[in-house]
């Protein structure tokens, strides 16, 4: 039987924008009632354009922001950070990797400290053990122990994203939220990071919530796909369903906008150009 690692029911999030001297207060409905569930070891991809509420949803799943209404279950337990404060236990279960590897690492912190900090805050492991675990994790994400004492500026974008992934995995989370982890990276580095994510998923039975606007990446990595548009989930289903038969007009627009790199479509474009 499959275990649901994370489940959301009718999650809503409103932002209140306070009025000033010249304008009245407004409410922005960033997420308007989204439901989803992800089984253990699977990947849910959330797709949508900027401003559609996918990062807001990521922050709610990661327990950074509370939802305005709706229910969120993690490992079967109901979580409501608006009412109850978050326990260290819960904090350990969900981790996040941010979009920009250049902005999400503290430039004045050594890599070893970056990796040790989650353990320092959430566990009572002694310094030596933290150090050993950090070394092990560095090797696991394809870096070496000699990187332990270096600073983030000494690494390339792909290496930094590996460090961010390593930091997220230090606490053995069951759920990893990836907010556009490869959109700031080159094609060749992107492939390396995607492979790393696949390897880690196999090894630790990790569950991913993968946020992206790149459909070719989503098609490669996802099991289920959710398409968001102005705060609503306009399409939700397995990868095969969504890609074979997109129901909503926005999904179709999205597919049409994705550049195609196969020979047939290049031929079609060149023929069209010649005719014009």
């Amino acid at each position: 039987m499959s275990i649901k690692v994370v489940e959301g029911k009718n999650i809503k999030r409103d932002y209140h924008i306070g009025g000033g001297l010249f304008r009245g207060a407004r409410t922005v409905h960033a997420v308007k009632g989204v439901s989803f569930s992800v089984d253990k070891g699977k990947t849910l991809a959330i797709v949508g354009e900027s401003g559609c509420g996918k990062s807001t949803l990521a922050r709610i799943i990661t327990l950074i922001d509370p939802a305005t209404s709706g229910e969120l279950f993690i490992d079967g337990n109901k979580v409501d950070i608006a009412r109850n404060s978050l326990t260290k236990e819960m904090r350990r279960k969900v981790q996040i990797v941010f979009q920009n590897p250049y902005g999400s690492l503290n430039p004045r912190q050594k890599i070893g400290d970056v990796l040790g900090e989650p353990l320092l805050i959430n566990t009572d492991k002694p310094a030596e053990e933290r150090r050993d675990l950090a070394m092990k994790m560095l090797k696991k994400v394809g870096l070496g122990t000699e990187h332990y004492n270096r600073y983030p500026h000494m690494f390339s974008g792909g290496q930094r994203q590996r460090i961010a992934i390593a930091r997220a995995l230090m606490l053995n989370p069951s759920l990893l939220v990836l907010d556009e982890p490869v959109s700031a990276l080159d094609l060749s580095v992107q492939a390396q990071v995607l492979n790393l994510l696949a390897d880690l998923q196999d090894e630790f039975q990790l569950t991913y919530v993968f946020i992206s606007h790149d459909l070719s990446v989503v098609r490669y990595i996802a099991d289920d796909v959710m398409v968001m548009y102005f705060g609503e989930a306009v399409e939700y289903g397995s990868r095969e369903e969504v890609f074979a038969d997109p129901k909503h007009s926005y999904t179709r627009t999205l597919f049409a906008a994705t550049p195609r790199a196969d020979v047939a479509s290049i031929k079609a474009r060149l023929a069209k150009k010649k005719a014009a």
Partner: protein
Amino acid sequence: MALLDIQNLVVEFQTASGPFRAVDGVSLHVDEREVLAIVGESGSGKSVSMLAVMGLLPWTATVTADEMSFNGRDLLKMSPAERRKIVGKDMSMIFQEPMASLNPCFTVGFQIEEVLRFHMGMDKAQRRERAIELLTQVGIAEPAERLNSFPHQMSGGQCQRVMIAIAIACNPKLLIADEPTTALDVTIQKQILDLLVSLQVKYGMGLIMITHNMGVVAETADRVIVQYKGRKMEEADVLSLFESPKSNYTRALLSALPDNAVGDRLPTVSDMLFEPAAGVA
């Protein structure tokens, strides 16, 4: 005759640990009405070679070339003042990050009109009229009101459109687009690419598209140059590049596309020794 002709371009930077060669003997040419794509990962010297053409590199850079001519004029022998008359007028560039390349202290209208004032010598009324025309052309709604907006009041896609408007303000002969869509999401990317290509066809510009996105190459280019670590690996027209890549680096790059994934893992571009295709270097 080629619009832009570069032979054996070398760019070196003076660093603390000695000279660093960012571009190592690249030759390229662009004809009128042609779309050339330059592909490569970050650090492959694709942006630096175009900045060298524009003369926008810092003083730490040494630019040497056997030939660098634009529209029959030698760019290397030109005085800086002469060169500034060409750059921005006949040859203009769209920079990578729209949010960072617009000046946050001035309105969008001021920044568009600045180009017209320097290069075209238009008076105030003409400038305003042309600026409105340009914003309409790049597809910004309510252009007259938008001229008074500051960059932070616009979205990333809108800022990129403003950048394009500035670049095409003087009807350039050559437009260089440096990763014009990297920071944007797919639907906006499509709009911007369609806009660039339609403008290129309409005005018969030469267009150089710098990118690392193979999809963008497939959708826009006529001819493609693949660059790796400052050297040209392959040059081919777009169809033969995708159909039968000659260099092993191009093959590695193409197989790293998630679209072309076979099986469980993607092949990666590791640090193996890549050879330029025969007859290129």
